[in-house]
Every structure is written in structure tokens, then in C-alpha cells.
């Protein structure tokens, strides 16, 4: 009897490990987004990046083995106005001619319990690299999963907004980078791309 229940337990562990072992590795860029929020004269503002490339390998049962990388095309910024888009491409902001992309490369991922995780890594913008940590949630849906998280940065750490713009009383130093990444499990399960 005892050994039977033990076998039953092994069976359960095996089934659940198979169910959970689906590693997500194919990012669905059309369903994913990278946006940002900041304060300007005390007013909450937001914007987004239209182009970015995200790569990841993530198995919720083995977060320590996970890794992620995201490259953001800074020229694809949408601040809400063309005047703003042109301004932030300039030397005082992103200087996106010389530094066309922002890059985040993970160094470690850990579980915070339930569907919450935390990714640590290096964020590089405008030739400067800073250690960054982003808590995120992971919501699986069959073979697809959605990652939602926020990376808090201080723009002056990357010299984003120099000269008169370095005054944080108009445009705040704190910027939240919000990501919503949808990924598939195995390539076999991925929907054919058109």
C-alpha cells in the first residue's frame, strides 16, 4: 500500500514536471510592448517604443536557468508629439545617431513566490551600463505566457537629458520602463508567421 502511494506520488511529480517544463523561448513581438512613464511638471506622462527585439528562455519551474535580453530601437520612440520625438533623439537626450539602441541583458532570474519573479541584469543606454532589477509577473496560458514588469531607472544615470534638461524639477529623474512580453513555448507550437 505504502509503495503504491509512493509510486502514485512519483507519477504526480512526473506529470506536473512535464506540464511545467515547457520553456518559453519565442517572443511574439506583435503582442508585446515596451512603454515608459515619467513626470513632467508633476504631470504623469507616458510614451512607448515601437521597435524592439526581445529574446528569452524561461521555464517557471526553473527560474534560475532563465535568461532574457531586449534591444530597444531608440529612434522608434513615441513621446506623443513629433516635437518631443525629435527632441529626445538629439545629443542632450539619447543621441540616438551615435547610440541607436538601449540594451538590457539579464544576469539572474529568481522567483518571488506565486506568479512573481525578479530579473536582475545590466541596462546599457548611451554608452553607460547600470545594474538594474525588474520585478515581473508571469501568467501562463497554455503554451503561451505573458510577462509584465517595470524597470525603474534614473535617467541622469545614463546622461539622458543633459544641459538645461538635467534640471529634474521639470522632467523628473525617475522613469519607469514597463514591459509586456508575450512568448510561445516550443517553436513547434508557434503559430506560423505571415
Amino acid at each position: 500500500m505504502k509503495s503504491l502511494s509512493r509510486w502514485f506520488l512519483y507519477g504526480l511529480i512526473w506529470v506536473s514536471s512535464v506540464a511545467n517544463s515547457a520553456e518559453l523561448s519565442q517572443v511574439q513581438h506583435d503582442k508585446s510592448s515596451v512603454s515608459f512613464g515619467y513626470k513632467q511638471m508633476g504631470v504623469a506622462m507616458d510614451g512607448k517604443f515601437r521597435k524592439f527585439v526581445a529574446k528569452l528562455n524561461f521555464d517557471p519551474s526553473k527560474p534560475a536557468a532563465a535568461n532574457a535580453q531586449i534591444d530597444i530601437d531608440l529612434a522608434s520612440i513615441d513621446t506623443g508629439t513629433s516635437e518631443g520625438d525629435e527632441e529626445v533623439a538629439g545629443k542632450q537626450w539619447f543621441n540616438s545617431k551615435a547610440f541607436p539602441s538601449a540594451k538590457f541583458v539579464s544576469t539572474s532570474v529568481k522567483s518571488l513566490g506565486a506568479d512573481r519573479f525578479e530579473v536582475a541584469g545590466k541596462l546599457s543606454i548611451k554608452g553607460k551600463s547600470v545594474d538594474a532589477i525588474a520585478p515581473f509577473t508571469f501568467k501562463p496560458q497554455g503554451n503561451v505566457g505573458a510577462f509584465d514588469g517595470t524597470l525603474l531607472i534614473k535617467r541622469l544615470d545614463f546622461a539622458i537629458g543633459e544641459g538645461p534638461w538635467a534640471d529634474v524639477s521639470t522632467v523628473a529623474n525617475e522613469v519607469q520602463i514597463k514591459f509586456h512580453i508575450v512568448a510561445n513555448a516550443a517553436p513547434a507550437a508557434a503559430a506560423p508567421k505571415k
Partner: protein
Amino acid sequence: MNTQSLSRYSGAAILIHWLTALLIFVAFPLGKYMHDLPLSPQKLELFSYHKWLGITVLLLFLPRLLVRIAKPPPTALPAPAWQHRAASVTHALLYLLILLVPLSGWLMSSAKGVSVVYLSLVPLPDLVDKNKELGSLLKEFHEALSTGLFVLVALHLAAAIKHHVIDKDGTLRRMLPGRNT
């Protein structure tokens, strides 16, 4: 000069009138000036100040109406009927635009995605969702209405000066602080 010519507007009405005038005289040229500035922290600051001035004008409208109801304006001084009519129409339009100019600015701010946080303290609700086309349209409205307000204020001012300098009646003095006689 008879006593009727010196029956003044109520103190509250006089205060709100000149306060609104002062706010408009600052907000209007500020709006014209900041609009053409290249994007800079100073421009962002000026936009905020302009919005705060406009919202203050809007806020003063309610007490203005209440005061007008509680203490109606003194009877108009004798003048040709067409002048009384012109004055009534100008005053009605002034009231309308004092309401519509800040309101269109607020709407425009909402549509452009730059909400108004009054005095950097009180976040005002967005009246419409962020929408670029609507934002540009409301900008046109705001500019046209502001120009309309500018023309009306000029007319109003010209009439006040005409009453004071040419007619030498008490019209202007009724809107100045002083004792009722």
C-alpha cells in the same frame, strides 16, 4: 454727476472682474509667446503656468455667477439703445468665452496627453482620451476662441475708455473700488 452714476458693482464683483482681467492679460500673451518657443524645460514650465492661469479663470467663473445673482449689477447708465444692446451682447459673449477658452485648453491638454495638475498639486481629470487628431482640432479651437476673447476684451476696454474720457460718465468708476455714495 448724480448719485446713480456712482452706484457701484459689489466689492466681490469688482474683485473678481479685475482678477479675471489680470489673469487674461497674463495668460493671453504667455500663450502666444510660449507656443513658438523651441522645446525646453522653460517651455514646459510656461505651459504649466499658462494652464494654471486658465484654470484659475475657470474657477473664478462660479463665484462670479453667484455674486451676480446675489448682488445684481447696478442699472446701466443712460445711453442710446444700440449701445445698451451692444454692451449686453459683449458681456454675454465675454462670459461665454471666459468659460470656453479655459475649457477648450483643458480639453486640448487631455487630448494631447498632457493632463493638467493644477498648481502642481491637484490633478484634474482628463476630459477626453488621448487622441492626436482631436488634440490638433482642439488647439485650433482654443486659438480661435482666445483670439475671439482678445477682440471682445479690446472692445470692452475701448467702450470703458470711451465712457470715461468722452462721455465722462461713471461707467468705469462703478467697476473701481470705492465707497458707494
